[in-house]
């Protein structure tokens, strides 16, 4: 062959190969083997109303299902909490259903704890195993050897779990969540005599003063308050509400404010009292409101005597003029509303600081007024110090008195190790997890009885702190269960039946659906002769019962025996010389307290303030960073009296120079392929000081050292304060 012919041939072959690549292939058309049921039309969506349980806010959702698959979730326009809106976390729960690492069937451990070595067992065997352990406890007359640890449950499920534990004869039933608003309840109890959470009428207020309440991202009911905030700013023709944020770190909420007051951590309560004192001293208060609450201005002023401006200026580290200005604005604009959030509550002096903010609302007459604060009617009473209950349980477990622990949720991740929970749990001989992904807790369990995904479950969802009327949202399965899983309450019922005797008699329902329907029927209070089935179908169609009777709760009134709030000086774990910085752990926008981490949509969501995607980071003020020689994206080591973590630094101007902040939610040891090994869990740093039975997650001091220039930080853009350009970009 001549050289020329060879080249020609080669070119032709190459060209045809390239052209063949452009050729689009005929697709295949796969028929059903057996046609789907009546009501399923291929290519056409059906919408089901349900409720979101990704956080306690309990928004209503509409799920589009086509060909028997859940495709898209949006907010339910009829639901009084979210009115058709929905946050990213709610949108992402469809990925819980289709997560590739879901536990498809019950598992029994066959290797060392934490190794993830499990064998498949049947449900009969799984429930039999659990029932055998419980029967053994009954035989030994040691029913208190059973512990149940769940997140805060509400409605029928709470009723079922407590009935299960009560009848079994165990008092070790703890409902615990990291970001629980317990302290808000405890503060309300001390100030007003009843422990209801606040409902803020943000939409109607004209001056909003938030003490560390990040209501746009995660405080209580973020979708509700996010849209109310929009209403307050732009919804009225003549007024644009003013917003001042107090808190050492600029969150997304703080970034939406007109004025940012970066007070020293732990000084927020003193600052509120300083403002209250100024309002009293300058007679800017609402005298009618004071009289109605049985308070006297003179006495109150005397009680707050210590909080004069110079002292508050020194405590909070804010300019004196700004404090006085905000206090006067707050008092002279009506209606005005002050909120207290997690940044304040999770300090050592949290409850009293929250009460100081209550006092501000009282002084300007914003209790039970439009544009003010009302008691939440949705779920008026709840745990007031579940952390103390958790500590008691840890004590019991440590003493080896818990033989069987049934755990829903992932406490091994979300309880800070400083509480000793990890060691205590290791002493429990038999751990049952109900997780649908192999999370940290499930990996250490002896038996995994996987729960349904939310979109496969029945339930009632009672929203927290978002309404003035009682609202019950309903959850219904929108698809057939994908795997051989069972809903947690169904497992409890089946176990009770297996145990027989008193347990079976106390929990006679065949299924959770039956129990739920019974509970809803009781709530509806139907007259005899009315067809409940029709009501039930109607409720399911609309997503729940939204026309609750108006609340029986009386409004807030300052308790006659309530002392004036006097927060003590904040107390921090760690010596200021060795550990010069305050550590703030804040719930991340995407993951909340970590339960959003397994979903890739949320993992891909850049943080709204720093634009960081994937992993964890620590936010450091540029001044501090320059002093320590830390650049944007450097790897640093954060050390607290409790532990040490390595993570990349984000040089962030929106934080006090004496403070560093790490987002919560990453650093899972398990929880599926998307969460596992991503970032670090900042709870490893959180220390406890003294014997205080109070969750002071933001009262730890740390020190920072630069390790190297390779932090492997990924950002979606050039955030403000970026000092280096050689970052990995996407």
């Amino acid at each position, binding site marked *: 062959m001549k050289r020329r012919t060879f080249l020609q041939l080669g070119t032709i072959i190459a060209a045809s190969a390239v052209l063949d690549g*452009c*050729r*689009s292939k005929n697709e295949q058309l796969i*028929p059903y083997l*057996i046609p789907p049921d009546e009501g399923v*039309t291929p*290519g056409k969506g059906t919408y089901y109303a349900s409720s979101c349980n990704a956080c306690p806010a309990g928004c209503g959702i509409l799920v589009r299902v086509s060909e028997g698959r859940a495709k898209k979730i949006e907010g339910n326009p009829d639901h009084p909490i979210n009115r058709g809106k929905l946050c990213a976390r709610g949108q992402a729960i469809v990925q819980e259903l289709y997560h590739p690492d879901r536990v498809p069937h019950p598992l029994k451990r066959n290797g060392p704890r934490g190794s993830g070595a499990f064998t498949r067992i049947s449900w009969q065997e799984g429930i039999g195993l659990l029932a055998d352990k419980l029967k053994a406890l009954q035989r030994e007359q040691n029913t208190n050897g059973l512990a149940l640890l769940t997140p805060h449950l509400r409605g029928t499920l709470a009723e079922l779990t407590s009935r299960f534990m009560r009848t079994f004869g165990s008092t070790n039933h703890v409902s615990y969540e990291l970001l629980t608003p317990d302290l808000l309840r405890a503060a309300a109890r001390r100030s007003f005599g009843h422990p209801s959470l606040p409902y803020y009428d943000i939409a109607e207020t004209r001056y909003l003063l938030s003490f560390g309440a990040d209501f746009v991202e995660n405080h209580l009911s973020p979708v509700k308050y996010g849209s109310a905030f929009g209403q307050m700013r732009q919804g009225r023709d003549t007024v644009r509400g003013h917003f001042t944020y107090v808190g050492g770190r600029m969150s997304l909420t703080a970034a939406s404010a007109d004025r940012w007051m970066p007070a020293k951590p732990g000084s927020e309560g003193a600052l509120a009292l300083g403002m209250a004192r100024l309002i009293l001293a300058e007679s800017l208060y609402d005298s009618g409101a004071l009289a109605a609450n049985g308070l006297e201005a003179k006495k109150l002023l005397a009680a707050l005597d210590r909080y004069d401006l110079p002292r508050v200026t020194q405590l909070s580290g804010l300019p004196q003029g700004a404090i006085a200005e905000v206090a006067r604005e707050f008092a002279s604009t009506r209606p005005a509303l002050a909120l207290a959030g997690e940044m304040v509550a999770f300090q050592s002096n949290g409850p009293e600081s929250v009460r100081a903010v209550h006092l501000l609302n009282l002084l300007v007459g914003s209790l039970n007024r439009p544009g003010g604060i009302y008691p939440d009617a949705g779920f008026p009473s709840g745990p007031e110090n579940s952390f103390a209950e958790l500590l008691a349980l840890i004590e019991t477990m440590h003493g080896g008195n818990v033989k069987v622990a049934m755990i829903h949720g992932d406490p091994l991740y979300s309880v800070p190790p400083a509480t000793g929970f990890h060691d205590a749990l290791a002493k429990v001989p038999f751990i049952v997890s109900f997780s649908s992904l192999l999370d940290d807790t499930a990996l250490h369990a002896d038996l995994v009885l996987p729960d349904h995904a939310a979109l496969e479950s029945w339930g009632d969802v009672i929203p927290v702190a978002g309404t003035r009327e009682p609202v019950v949202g309903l959850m219904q399965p929108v698809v057939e269960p994908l795997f051989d899983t069972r809903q947690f309450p169904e497992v409890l019922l089946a176990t009770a039946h297996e145990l027989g005797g008193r347990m079976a008699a106390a929990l006679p329902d065949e299924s959770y659906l039956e129990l739920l329907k019974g509970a809803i029927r009781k709530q509806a209070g139907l007259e005899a002769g009315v067809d409940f089935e029709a009501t039930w179908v109607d409720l399911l169609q609309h997503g729940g019962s939204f026309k609750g009777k108006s609340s029986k709760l009386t409004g807030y009134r300052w308790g006659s025996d309530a002392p004036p709030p006097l927060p003590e000086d904040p107390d921090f774990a760690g010596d200021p010389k060795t550990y010069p910085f305050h550590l703030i752990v804040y719930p991340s926008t995407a993951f909340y307290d970590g339960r959003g981490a397994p979903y890739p949509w949320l993992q891909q969501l850049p943080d709204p303030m720093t634009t960081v995607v994937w992993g964890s980071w620590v936010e450091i003020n540029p001044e501090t960073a320059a002093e320590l020689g830390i650049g944007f994206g450097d790897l640093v080591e954060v050390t607290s009296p409790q532990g040490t973590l390595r993570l990349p630094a984000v040089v962030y101007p929106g934080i006090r120079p004496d403070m560093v902040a790490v987002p919560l939610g990453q650093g899972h040891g398990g929880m599926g392929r998307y969460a596992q090994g991503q970032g670090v869990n900042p709870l490893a740093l959180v220390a406890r000081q003294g014997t205080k039975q109070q969750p002071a997650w933001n009262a730890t001091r740390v020190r920072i050292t630069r390790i190297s220039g390779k932090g492997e930080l990924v950002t979606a853009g050039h955030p403000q304060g970026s000092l280096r350009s050689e970052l990995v970009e996407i």
Partner: protein
Amino acid sequence: MNKVRLIIGLAIVTVAIVAASVLLYILPLDVRDHSPVQPLRFSHKLHAGDNGIHCLFCHSYALKSPAAGIPSMEECRACHLFISPNAPEIKKLMKYWEKREPIPWVRVYSLPDFVYFPHMMHVRAKLPCAACHGEVATMERITRSASLKMGWCLNCHQKHKASIDCWTCHK
């Protein structure tokens, strides 16, 4: 001399590449098979033509769904348990059924993802199936008779005074 040759050569190569790219862009590169061989020799002529079965009998979702749908295996089988069960192609069908495998039919008509085409609206507007799918009743094996290009869609929409707003099809 050599330099000039090199320059001319390079110029020719550049022009050729540009021309090829332009050609690739203009040429109708839809080289999908218009009449692909199907895994089973199913005859539309026999079913829809000779026996006069209505299109919607098998493609039953066309009236109420964007997708017309194809009959499930169970539906094929239900008839053919009794109708010519011994024909070789029917035996093939039954083999698929026994193996619990769907027949991997080759798709003839397909639109890109960015086009929203609802069958039900067209059927309800009394457009005959043959307007797009050709005289299926005379075809042994289905052959695509329309180009399925946007111009072809628009022509018909204009003729029938249907909306030609972008959002009608691209949503």
